[in-house]
């Protein structure tokens, strides 16, 4: 105990720096977590969060055993997020590396600004654009298909294509914005290392592989692990705007189900239980990945 106090005293400025943020987390993130108890109770408006009768695992049992296809929702959520990660995670990195090679300042600046523009277009509009692009009657994609002699395809209503549409539209919209963090990381790589590599005879690609990537690996690891941790949650807006009943079987995810059940039905205990389930799975995922990351590459989040 005494060593603990000695340590704190010795590093008191560090703890002082930590304190404000810590306090904020306790009040605004951990204190509300008491509300998670709703998942185990029958939520009652006038009895508040702590009133309401205890029902234990009733809602968990519901989603696992009574709901007709919760399993399908989980699969859709995981698959869509997994594809987004597999295809969408490397792209901002590659883009950042490519942008880094653009020497002309103004051109580079212009490019950087342009690629983050779609991020600011709301999903409602962006989704509308996607739907038009893919329209079987006038959309560009189908016009191209017909030009090559094919038949128009109603992409938005087809189960085969829906997930790809979700992934590709996500990349189109957000890859540009996501490059920013990597650009900042690339800029932080010690330039003398490039010198050394050049002297050793390394060409551009080898320099990138041996200098840049290791130099930004901390950032990559953090972002990768965090994204894995949230694999069980999807944003709601994109799916809601793009989906329709004909593609429910591949596109209906946990968040859209929660939306339907939550509004006009007020099933808060149920939706909280589902949220808890997603969090627990996320915890498991991030712990496992962190562990593997440490074992394989010696880098980890904690």
């Amino acid at each position: 105990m005494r060593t603990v106090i000695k340590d704190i005293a010795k590093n008191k400025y560090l703890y002082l720096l930590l304190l404000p943020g810590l306090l904020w987390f306790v009040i605004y993130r951990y204190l509300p977590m008491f509300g998670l108890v709703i998942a185990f109770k029958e939520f009652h408006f006038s009895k508040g969060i702590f009133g309401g009768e205890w029902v234990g695992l009733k809602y968990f049992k519901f989603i696992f055993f009574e709901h007709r296809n919760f399993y399908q929702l989980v699969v859709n959520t995981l698959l869509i997020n997994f594809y987004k990660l597999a295809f969408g995670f490397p792209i901002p990195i590659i883009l950042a590396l490519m942008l880094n090679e653009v020497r002309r300042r103004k051109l580079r600046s212009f490019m950087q600004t342009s690629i983050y523009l779609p991020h600011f277009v709301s999903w409602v509009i962006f989704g509308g654009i996607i739907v038009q692009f893919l329209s079987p009657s006038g959309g560009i994609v189908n016009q191209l298909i017909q030009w090559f002699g094919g038949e128009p395809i109603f992409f938005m209503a087809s189960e085969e294509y829906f997930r790809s549409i979700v992934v590709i539209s996500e990349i189109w919209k957000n890859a540009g914005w996501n490059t920013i963090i990597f650009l900042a990381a690339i800029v932080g790589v010690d330039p003398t290392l490039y010198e050394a590599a050049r002297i050793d005879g390394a060409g551009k690609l080898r320099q990138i592989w041996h200098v840049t990537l290791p130099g930004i690996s901390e950032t990559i690891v953090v972002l990768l692990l965090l994204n894995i941790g949230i694999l069980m949650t999807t944003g709601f807006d994109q799916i809601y705007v793009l989906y329709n009943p004909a593609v429910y079987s591949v596109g209906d995810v946990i968040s859209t189900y929660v939306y339907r059940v939550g509004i006009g039905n007020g099933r808060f205990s149920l939706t909280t239980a589902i949220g808890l389930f997603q969090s627990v799975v996320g915890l498991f995922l991030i712990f496992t990945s962190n562990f593997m990351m440490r074992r394989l590459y010696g880098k980890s989040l904690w």
Partner: protein
Amino acid sequence: MQRRLTLGQAVNYAILLIFVFLCILPFYYVVVVSLSEPTLVKEGRITILPQGFSLRAYEIVLAQDRFFNAFQISTLRTAVGLVVSLFLQCTMAYALSRKALRGRKFFILFVVFTILFSAGIIPTYLVVRYTGIINTFWALIIPDAISAWNVLILLSFFSSIPDAIEESAKMDGANDFQVFWKLMIPLSIPAVSTIGLFIAVHHWNSLMDGIMYINKTSLKPLQVYLMDLVMRSEMTDMNANIDDQALPSLSIQTAAIFAATLPVLLVYPFIQRYFTKGIMLGAIKG
């Protein structure tokens, strides 16, 4: 510097330019539609040029005092929020990056946990209310003041600064706070600016906290105002006739997006330079 374009560079440019074109397209569409004559707004095709020219949508979006009030609120919250959030996030991230911090792993997990577990809208609302900031300006600043995501990213940046820097400063008699403020922050300008950008954009685009925590019209931020405007244009009104203020929803939406995004576009080029500053580690080592 080479004058001629190598093959590699040419390919690089080509691919980038294609991607840039694809990214400009949706935004261009937004601008074109917002400037088009509303009754001619045809969603059937992507138009290259505005169909008829009309500032009607912008008149509706921008003309009111309400817009400027909402704009003022958003600007204010972005400015104040930026300072508050940067302060909280940088101090915390820095402390967490120091190996000397006892219980470091625990604290990092403490932060990570909040990314995975969230209590939901109602309990958070109750806490915000309990801390007395409901329906005040601070409800736009404090409940969202720290993004655990940002803290962890900053942490990774601070961790990647070589230990030698800190050691040599400490040997010169600096304490942790001085190392942080005078040394680490200046060395981390790209990271701090990036996070600063994220914070600012997040505040600027924030919608839900304005809906949930604010009742007073005078405190409603920009996005809430714009969204209300869009909702109105989509309403089926039983009693009203063709209100000549009513425009197709698409016109209003696109004008709203452009009005909200323009400030970001104008500001970004000026702060971009902070991202391109390299860390002159070599020089400092000496």
